């Protein structure tokens, strides 16, 4: 359990944060712009995909998941999986009515 000591290196520089921020702002602009166009059923998918990419960036960079121990990524995976499976099962009821 000596990994708490190595934690001093647990950081990013300023630069990468600003880059990520710029990417996030761009993605927001895209999602707003795209929302005006009607893709039909794809509209919601596009919006959610962009939101997912944004969350991924925040998780990996801002929340340091990228440089965190592997077990943290497994945790996040388990939590997201639980959410996704639950919603899929929920729709097995509603979408076949």
């Amino acid at each position: 359990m000596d990994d708490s000591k190595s934690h001093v290196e647990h950081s990013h520089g300023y630069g990468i944060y600003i880059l990520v921020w710029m990417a996030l702002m761009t993605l927001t602009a895209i999602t707003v712009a795209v929302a005006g166009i009607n893709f039909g059923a794809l509209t919601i998918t596009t919006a959610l995909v962009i939101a997912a990419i944004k969350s991924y960036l925040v998780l990996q960079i801002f929340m340091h998941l990228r440089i965190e121990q592997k077990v943290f990524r497994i945790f996040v995976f388990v939590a997201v999986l639980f959410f996704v499976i639950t919603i899929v099962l929920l729709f097995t009821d509603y979408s076949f009515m």
Partner: protein
Amino acid sequence: MSSQEHAAAHVHRDDVGSRMGMWLFLFTEMLLFGGMFFLYSIYRYMNPEAFHVAAKELNTLIGAFNTAILLTSSLTMALSITAIQKNNKSLSLFFQFLTILLALGFMVNKYFEWTAKFHHGIYPGGEELLSRSPGEVLFFGLYYVMTGLHGLHVVIGAVIIAVMMRFTAKGIITQTNYVKLETAGLYWHLVDIIWIFLFPLFYLIT
């Protein structure tokens, strides 16, 4: 007040453990909102038209502006941690302060948005809202509850960061011991992520 001091002397500091605890807590927050996302998705599936009509009443510009504010505040939060890691205390304090300021900006924006809706009678139990279709009632019910709970989290986050500023100023958070600031940051970023999903789901239904 009892064995705590005694115990603290023996238990070594475990930053990874602290962050792990925070992450686990974030999962509960995520699923707290998750429950409401379940509701949202089912109701939207059942009432696509009504959600479409209702969403038009929300101002996309204000929503987008608030998204930008929150994303920027996430940036300043992350920067404040880097600053303390580089032992730049005053810069870290500045960034933390900026984060709180942005949080307040978000809330002011939200305040105007809500009051405008209230003026039009669109609030739970409001006459205008009750005259609408059930789907629209559900949409606004969810809108108020979800953005309201999110707003509450923004306020809590701002308070936590204020406490962190105090810790930083007093030298409790330092270059070698900044896990408190880190966990506060994790919380703040989660609030941001939730908004990343709330924004398209409420403001961008076309």
